């Protein structure tokens, strides 16, 4: 059994991908606060981690099949500016490097989250272990 995905061999270093956008709503904030019990400083504030979490799903709305991720290895992330309820963010991502291992390979993905004014709100690097074509993800 295998899943359609972008495998380690298929990943193009330096290729830039843009995702569709999503508007951050009060509903997102309420669901997130219920799930995490993380208090918001003010009602219109959007917790930074919520924006990060929502950005992950944006990658699933592009035409290319998602990365065949075996494991999410780590993340180095910067919050540049605050996001408010009603803001609309999208992602831009670029593969910085890929390093093969016997099983799969490490991929560093540089990502920026951009608001409706074109301003970067959060950015950083994700490291994934991605499957090679013959391997079953996970």
């Amino acid at each position, binding site marked *: *059994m295998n*899943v359609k995905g972008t495998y380690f061999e298929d990943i193009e270093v330096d290729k830039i991908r843009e995702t569709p956008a*999503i508007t951050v709503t009060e509903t*997102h904030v309420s*669901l*997130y606060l219920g*799930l*995490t*019990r*993380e*208090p918001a*400083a003010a009602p219109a504030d959007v*917790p*930074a*981690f*919520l924006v*990060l*979490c*929502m950005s*992950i*799903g*944006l990658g*699933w*709305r592009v035409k290319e099949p*998602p990365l065949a*991720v075996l*494991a*999410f*290895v*780590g*993340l*180095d*992330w*910067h*919050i540049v500016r*605050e996001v408010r309820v009603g803001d609309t963010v999208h992602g831009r991502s670029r593969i910085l490097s890929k390093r093969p291992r016997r099983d799969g390979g490490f991929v560093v993905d540089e990502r920026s989250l951009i608001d409706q004014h074109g301003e970067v709100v959060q950015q*950083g690097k994700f490291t994934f272990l991605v499957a090679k074509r013959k391997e*079953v*993800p*996970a």
Partner: protein
Amino acid sequence: MSEQRRYFQEIPLGEEYESPGRTVTESDLVIFSGLSGDYNVLHTDAEFMKQSIFGERIAHGLLCLAIQSGLFNRAATEYATLGLAGLRWKFKAPVKIGDTIRLRAKVAAKKDLDKPDRGLVTIERTIVNQRDEVVQQGETDLIVEKRR
């Protein structure tokens, strides 16, 4: 805001915290998939995951990162936090449905920022499961208001 919020000067370097436990449930995974839009088979396809090295669905890494943020607030007296500046984070081991996670945290560094009304507090964080195995680990940088 409660009077118990602590300002930058009132947070001692080296102070340690341990949170209550929190059991990660199937509902958490389902809600998080809907909220994040991340429907990766790792988190959503029980049959597929039976054949994987994990043997069952695993929690989203970012779900546990978000949960620990709430656990921190239950463990430490509230800071006068203005925002999060960034984090460096490693996902070390999977969290499965039914696992109970806890946060251990420590004030690792404090430094002044350019703006005189705020400082940066770096918190070392380790998420452990019910067997005391480290599942996630990293550091977060919080911007905290100074008492004038």
